[in-house]
């Protein structure tokens, strides 16, 4: 076993999946937002909703395309770097990923075609239905990915046969309390991402004094949705804590920076965990029973500390400890922004409150940071296990992978991803900067259902449109 190759493989997986998750979390939210816009356009008949729909459809196209492209790598990386894992868990993880791929392909690919070409060819209700189906497709994807990951967090419904995890009860794998607290948590996170990106765009237009009508709707709907969803998200976050506390005491102890068993437990708000000496430096702590109240909904419950867990089963304490606090911090800032912003919007004072508009504009990275740090908490906190309690990450790696191979692959991954990510972000930025087009939507000549990114072609190079018009 090559320990450096192991570390590099973990970094590579973390890098590629972090890069990937940015796009689906954005597009799941956007797909739902598009459905709402289309429904509003049908219900009210106001053209502004149609303009917004077509504007966000183009952004959806680029983000969706980047998500698909970066997702291809994920389908292979289990086999390349984690061949022992994929051999052992193939009978469970393989079918789940197959459901994800097949169903997403069906719903997203076929109905996305309707969104591009169908406006004049299908009845309005079917167009709305297609939008909803695309949203449903992205939701299905998220569901099966969450089932898969939840199984790795809390494996269930299997028996071990010849060194492989053999499923013996799919209902336990698909429908357990862990899935049903984690899947809504992720889904809400994606909706909040969409909401804040929309609100930030609206704030930007108000500040630049352009697209007044569209900007007001984006601000009001984005912040309003976030104001409603944020408290629900906090609730599901709390429910996630319960499964961690029940099934993964080592992760919980790391998140809480709790070294000793406590009954009832105290709550560390901020500290610097000093792993070597098993203590917290500069700790700000709420006295008992706040820890038990937060982790176990109880005034008296006993909470496990890291000292009663063998160190070889500890996660790297510092990462989940801080990642969790960053996630919660982002969540609280978003909650405050959404509530204050919605209140001001209700009082018709938001458009004149430039500081808050600036804050809203700069808030768009927050949901992404919260999602990434949330995943860091979940995944790094699961260590040293890949299938919690059963299979160690170190034992799951391809045994003959060398440091040289892992270094080469990581370097080229970083180079290629940085390259396409820079351009992708730049094109999305340019689209948003240009703003919605208040003219009938012309489908670019090369746009097709299978090429979501092509929707924005004409938009991005106006000079070619002029040249084309002269022909």
């Amino acid at each position, binding site marked *: 076993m090559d320990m450096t190759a192991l570390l590099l493989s973990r970094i590579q997986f973390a890098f590629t999946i972090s890069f990937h998750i940015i796009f689906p979390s954005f597009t799941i939210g956007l797909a739902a937002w598009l459905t709402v816009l289309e429904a509003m356009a049908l219900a009210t008949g106001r053209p502004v909703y149609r303009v917004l729909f077509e504007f966000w459809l183009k952004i959806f196209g680029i983000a969706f*395309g*980047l998500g*698909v*492209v*970066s997702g*291809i*790598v994920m*389908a*292979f990386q*289990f*086999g*390349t770097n984690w*061949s022992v894992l*994929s*051999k052992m868990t*193939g*009978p469970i993880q*393989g*079918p789940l*990923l*197959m*459901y994800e*791929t*097949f*169903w997403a*392909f*069906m719903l997203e*690919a076929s109905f996305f075609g309707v969104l591009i070409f169908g406006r004049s060819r299908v009845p309005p209700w079917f167009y709305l239905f297609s939008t909803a189906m695309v949203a449903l497709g992205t939701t299905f994807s998220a569901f099966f990915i969450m089932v898969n990951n939840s199984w790795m967090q809390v494996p269930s419904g299997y028996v071990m*046969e010849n060194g*492989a995890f*053999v*499923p*013996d009860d799919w209902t336990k794998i698909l429908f357990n309390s862990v899935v049903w607290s984690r899947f809504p948590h992720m889904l809400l996170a994606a909706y909040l991402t969409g909401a804040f990106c929309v609100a930030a765009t609206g704030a930007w237009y108000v500040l630049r004094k352009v697209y007044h009508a569209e900007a007001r709707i984006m601000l009001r709907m984005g912040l309003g949705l976030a104001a409603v969803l944020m408290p629900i998200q906090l609730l599901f976050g709390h429910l996630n804590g319960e499964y961690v506390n029940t099934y993964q005491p080592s992760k919980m102890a790391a998140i809480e920076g709790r070294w000793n068993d406590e009954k009832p437990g105290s709550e560390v708000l901020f500290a610097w965990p000093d792993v070597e000496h098993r203590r917290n430096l500069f700790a700000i702590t709420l006295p008992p029973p706040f820890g038990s109240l937060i982790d176990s909904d109880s005034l008296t419950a006993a909470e496990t500390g890291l000292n009663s867990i063998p160190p070889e089963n500890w996660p790297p304490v510092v990462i989940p400890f801080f990642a969790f606090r960053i996630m919660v911090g982002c969540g609280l800032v978003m909650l405050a922004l959404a509530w204050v912003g919605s209140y001001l919007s209700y009082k018709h004072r938001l458009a004149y409150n430039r500081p808050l508009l600036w804050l809203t504009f700069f808030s768009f990275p927050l949901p992404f940071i919260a999602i990434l740090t949330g995943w860091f908490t979940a995944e790094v906190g699961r260590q040293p296990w890949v299938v919690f309690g059963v299979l160690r990450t170190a034992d799951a790696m*391809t*045994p*003959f*992978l060398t440091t*040289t*191979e892992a270094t080469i*692959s990581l370097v*080229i*991954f970083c180079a290629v991803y940085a390259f*396409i990510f820079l*351009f*992708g972000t730049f*094109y999305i930025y340019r689209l948003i900067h240009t703003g919605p087009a208040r003219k009938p939507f012309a489908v670019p*000549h*090369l746009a*097709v*259902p*299978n*090429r979501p*990114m*092509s929707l*924005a072609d004409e938009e*991005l*190079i106006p000079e*070619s449109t002029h040249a*084309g018009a002269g*022909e």
Partner: protein
Amino acid sequence: MVMFWVLLLAISILLYVLLDGLDLGVGMLFGLASGETRRSAMLSAVAPIWDGNETWLVITAVILWGAFPVVYATLLSAFYLPLIVMLLGLILRGVAFEFRYKTHRLRWVWDLSFAGGSLIATFIQGLTVGALVQGLQVTNGQYSGGAVGWLTPFAVLCGIGLCLGYALLGACWLAKKCEAEVRDVAHRQIPALALGVLAFLVVVFAYALAENLPILHRWIERPYLFVFPAMGAVAAIVLALSILRHNDHWPFYTVAVIFVSAFGTLALSFWPYMIPFVITIEQAASPHSSLAFMFWGCGLIVFPLMLIYTVVSYSVFRGKVGTTAGH
């Protein structure tokens, strides 16, 4: 149930080779073409289909993982570096395809990525097949060939051969879909590429004889295997005739038949092994509970729907594309 998933796997691989083969081929020929008119005509001949073509690769991967996890784990880890380079090649060309229309100044960067990515991905696919035919070094059910165990002269030869083969398929597609200059150039490229593929097949066969590759023994044991090469030979004759007559459509179908016969030849000479002479289909198959779960939720209805979707998207796109792409 196992045979059902073998069938789906075979369909997926074959569709991937045929469909992505043609657009990877167009990608490589794109690198040789000059001038924006020709280039954009070539792109519009594959624009509506390339992404759908590539999904068959992902579908192949998930079928392998779900139904034959041992093969998935062994192959992907054995071909670690080439596979990752291939994936990045595919990503780069996919993104390039989209981004080249969003810029004028940087278009050359994306054009280079498109042609280069196509070439790299094709070469590695050929290399992988070559290394498999030659036989992977496996001890105790685990690959033991080292980081570059796949890098043999035979595998490199197969890599080059597949580049020629995909380019031929791409040229035939361009002859079928395009008009004017692009079609004429394609008609000039087809005979040259066809001769190249023929020369490659002769060399491969000679090499296999000289090295006495284990696959040859299968042929002596199973004479009925010659059905597929015979089919390929007939297709090659029809191809030669259609080249002489400058037909736009026949070359594509005959080359497709040649690919099918090559695929059938390989698959049947490996049978019942999935990784030649190491792991059989039965050894690799997932337990029944997994296969049945996938059968009801994916294989039975969704897979046929995906096939229908593929047929529909190709038939919507039938006929020639304009040289000036839509104007």
